[in-house]
């Protein structure tokens, strides 16, 4: 198995780039006409794109788009999903029934099909990408939280808390949530990989962030038109994307072993959305 600090280093490096991108001396949108489609050279490592913009600078700025969307979507869907799942499971009855039926409906759309349709109908833009991907992602967390809480509800310490008259919100906050945190964190780490691919996928289809903002997905899209003369336009953002997704998957696997989460089949990676 790969040493965990290699993928950890990759992620931290990209996260740092994403965080510092606005402060770095980058010119992702400067147009240098004589250099249109020229490949990498010692002066400009990754060459120029079809408008004469430096691919390296766009790659770094694209990391910011990826990470922004990933954190926003995973944050929103983790909070909403686990909240709904916990409430449904703890309350039981018709509330739970409604939740399960609603989850079933959202699960009936395979992969990011619903996100594609939503982003397509609402129009492109980073806000709409976050909304579209969150609408798809929350179900996973809700389902997991619900299953965890259902089994946690019957534990002795929860029965004891009920017996001494602790209020339900307090039981959930103090006696249930801390114990179901680990599987949710593991799910969220794999979720990051899915969302990074999801954002890039939407941008690849032209439904994501709008030009001139750089996104790895839209860079691949632009590059496919010039593949024979300028393959670097497709190869560079693809490798960056794969590096991040691969690292997140390896780290997620490690995290699962480390936190000893046993509710998922061993050694089976989470399938990325698209």
């Amino acid at each position: 198995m790969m040493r965990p600090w290699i993928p950890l280093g990759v992620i931290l490096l990209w996260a740092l780039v994403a965080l510092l991108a606005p402060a770095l001396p980058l010119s992702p949108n400067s147009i240098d006409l004589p250099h249109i489609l020229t490949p990498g050279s010692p002066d400009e490592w990754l060459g120029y794109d079809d408008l004469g913009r430096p691919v390296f600078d766009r790659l770094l700025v694209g990391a910011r788009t990826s990470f922004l969307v990933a954190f926003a979507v995973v944050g929103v869907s983790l909070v909403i999903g686990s909240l709904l799942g916990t409430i449904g499971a703890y309350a039981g009855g018709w509330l739970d029934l409604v939740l399960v039926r609603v989850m079933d409906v959202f699960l009936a759309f395979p992969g990011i099909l619903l996100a594609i349709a939503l982003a397509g109908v609402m129009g492109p833009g980073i806000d709409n990408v976050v909304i579209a991907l969150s609408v798809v992602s929350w179900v996973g967390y809700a389902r997991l939280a619900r299953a965890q809480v259902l089994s946690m509800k019957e534990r002795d310490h929860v029965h004891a808390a009920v017996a001494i008259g602790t209020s339900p919100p307090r039981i959930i906050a103090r006696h249930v949530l801390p114990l179901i945190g680990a599987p949710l964190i593991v799910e969220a780490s794999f979720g990051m990989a899915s969302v990074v691919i999801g954002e890039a996928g939407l941008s690849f289809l032209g439904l994501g962030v709008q030009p001139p903002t750089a996104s790895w997905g839209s860079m691949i899209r632009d590059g496919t038109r010039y593949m024979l003369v300028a393959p670097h336009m497709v190869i560079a953002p693809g490798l960056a994307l794969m590096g991040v997704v691969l690292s997140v998957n390896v780290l997620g696997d490690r995290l699962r072993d480390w936190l000893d989460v046993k509710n998922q089949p061993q050694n089976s990676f989470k399938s990325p959305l698209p």
Partner: protein
Amino acid sequence: MFIRFLISRFLTALAVVFGVVCLVFFLLHLVPGDPVEVMLGESARPADRAALQQALGLNQPVHVQFVRYMANLSQFDLGTSFYSKRPIRDLLLERLPATVELGVAALLVALLMAVPLGILAAVKKGTAWDVAATGIALFGVSIPNFWMGPMLILVGALWLGWFPVSGREGVASLVLPALTLGTALAAILSRMIRSAMLEIMNEDFMRTARGKGLAERTVILRHGLRNALLPVITLVGLQLGALLSGAVITETVFSWPGIGSLVVEAIHRRDYPVVQATVLCISTSYVALNVLTDLAYAWIDPRVRLGSQP
């Protein structure tokens, strides 16, 4: 008992489909501003605008629109394409064979890669073979379709010239899209086969087979794989859904004239009725596949059909 299971599964699926229909109906209402104006552009003539509004039923209250939509759906009337002016049902039927062809080919590719890889990893557990198989699977799930496709085009079509760049003409044009779509599934399946094989390896009948002097190859393929594949085959059914959504991107990359590329084309043309109908078509087929998988599983495993599972 089985009949009861069948009926309850069918009713649940029907409820889900109804929910999907509702959600898809509201898609059109998520278009920012006036959908008619978005579809026709600002310079449209008032007469055209009124005609489209009439055709989409947008001048009526929402509940009337919904009833009309449901009534049309119950007669398999999916509406008319705003772009090509043809019935959407015909468009879908025209595109369906290409998507089915691609899906079946991708499934074959996935099985051809996953079965040997999974067996190898299980039989040689803990060795370099196992680590390599794990690595390959990890790469398989981490390469997005929209990058794998262009890379295969670059190498297989532009550099080597073995396959056409895009389109659907003959078997050669099917190879690259099927590889693109099948790889992620192959990665996931190979892990399932590995863990199923590892469980089987400890069974008594495997020891018996070895004990009576059968060749190792026969033991693994005839006694091991046959039993390990049973749960895997039913899981393939669930993974077909991932294949359906992967098809949207893969078909777009290769200009494959299927249902997936129809969604994206319709979005770019702002042909919202087609977007609605196609999304509805894909997700109801997904629900149907899930039900069929459940039934197949129940049919194979009597414990499920006799109700020891919820």
